[in-house]
């Protein structure tokens, strides 16, 4: 595995969800940073904050040297300018679009030079090529999860946020996706923030582990 020497994720914020307020600090070394911790501790909230969907009460967020949020300096990039490839815990496929249109949703928005991957390639790797014409509600759990991963990868992201992206996959497919993520990280030097409860997964993939 190749390491990126620059700190990939530099997060130091206070988040609020409902009545709850909690501080989050992540300093990823580069490559894949695993975010682990008990359920309900704020992992998804952290990813939301990095993606620009949850505004922190204070602090700053930088990824690969780019400041996305800084309360003190009044910086708060809107989500669409952060270019996160976010695989949501609850997937959030677009019900009104076919699988192919879901996959290409971000790709079509992206600047041409960021379209580093092609639909066929991703669909092949994720084994979802036969599903392209289907609507999301006809997919099995694991199929939907792979489509969500493919959609994030195809959007030309500058970094990946993956919230338990492999839970619904069988061991063989999980291997394939893990290999794909590792390959993409290396080929495009993409920082990845990965939430996972699977210790083996974390041990095999992560370059750094952050406990929340």
């Amino acid at each position, binding site marked *: 595995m190749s390491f990126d020497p620059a700190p990939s994720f530099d997060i130091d914020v206070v988040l609020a969800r409902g009545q709850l307020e909690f501080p989050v600090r992540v300093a990823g070394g580069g490559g894949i940073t695993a975010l682990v911790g008990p359920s309900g501790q704020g992992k998804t909230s952290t990813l939301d904050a990095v993606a620009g969907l949850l505004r922190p009460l204070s602090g700053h967020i930088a990824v690969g040297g780019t400041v996305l949020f800084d309360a003190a300096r009044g910086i708060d990039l*809107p*989500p669409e300018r952060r270019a*996160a490839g*976010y695989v949501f815990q609850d997937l959030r496929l*677009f*019900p009104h679009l076919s699988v192919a249109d879901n996959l290409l*949703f*971000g790709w079509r*928005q992206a600047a041409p030079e960021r379209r580093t991957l092609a639909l066929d390639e991703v669909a092949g790797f994720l084994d979802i090529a036969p599903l392209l014409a289907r609507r999301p509600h006809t997919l099995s759990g694991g199929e939907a999860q792979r489509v969500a991963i493919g*959609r994030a990868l195809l959007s030309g992201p500058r970094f990946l946020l993956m919230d338990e992206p492999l839970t619904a996959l069988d061991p063989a497919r999980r291997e394939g996706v893990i290999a794909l993520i590792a390959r993409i990280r290396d080929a495009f030097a993409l920082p990845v923030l990965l939430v996972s409860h699977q210790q083996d997964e974390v041990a095999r993939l992560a370059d750094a582990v952050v406990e929340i």
Partner: protein
Amino acid sequence: MLLSAQEWGVVALSAKVSGVAILGVLPLAFALAFALARGRFRGRVLLDALVHLPLVLPPVVIGWMLLVAFAPAGPIGAWLWRLFGVTLLFRWTGAALAAAIMALPLMVRAIRLSLEAVDPRLEQAARTLGAGPWATFWRVTLPLCAPGIVAGAVLGFARSLGEFGATITFVSNIPGETQTLPLAIYAALQVPGSDATVLRLAGVAVLLSVLALVASELLARRQGGKGAHVL
């Protein structure tokens, strides 16, 4: 169903007036529905009440208000005449305006209902995928509330077809220009013994609305039907 040439003219005019009214007012209806569903501004309830006004007041009163506003000396009418040299009085465009206003509350409600059912998490997902607020609106929000837009348009079209009181008060009952189906029916109702004419014209109105209904059902089916639930 055999109609005279003049009756065909009435039918064509009705279809034109209702069609133009609905297509013309649809963007406004959507904007109002959006403001009411999403906006958190002061005076929201007031705006809501204003939108409902054409329902609450007898149509004749709405027609009278339009008449006062769009009269050549009226606040809007004078302005329209000075700037564009047009008047809506006694014109089919005025009939379309009256129909649009009467249909507006129905359309706003249907669209608003659909808008409120749109899952904001999907809009968030679109944003993270690089779609700005506008692209998200066009590619996610709008298609997700398509059922409400179609329902609103159908409801509004049906209401426009039946519009009578505001129309006759605002633009009078001029054959070939403002005499839509309901006005022609009214005219027939005033003549004893013309029940057959009334029924024939009413039949045509119903037929027109059935066509609109069938078209909307086909549209809804093409749109994907049951697929509209979030996985």
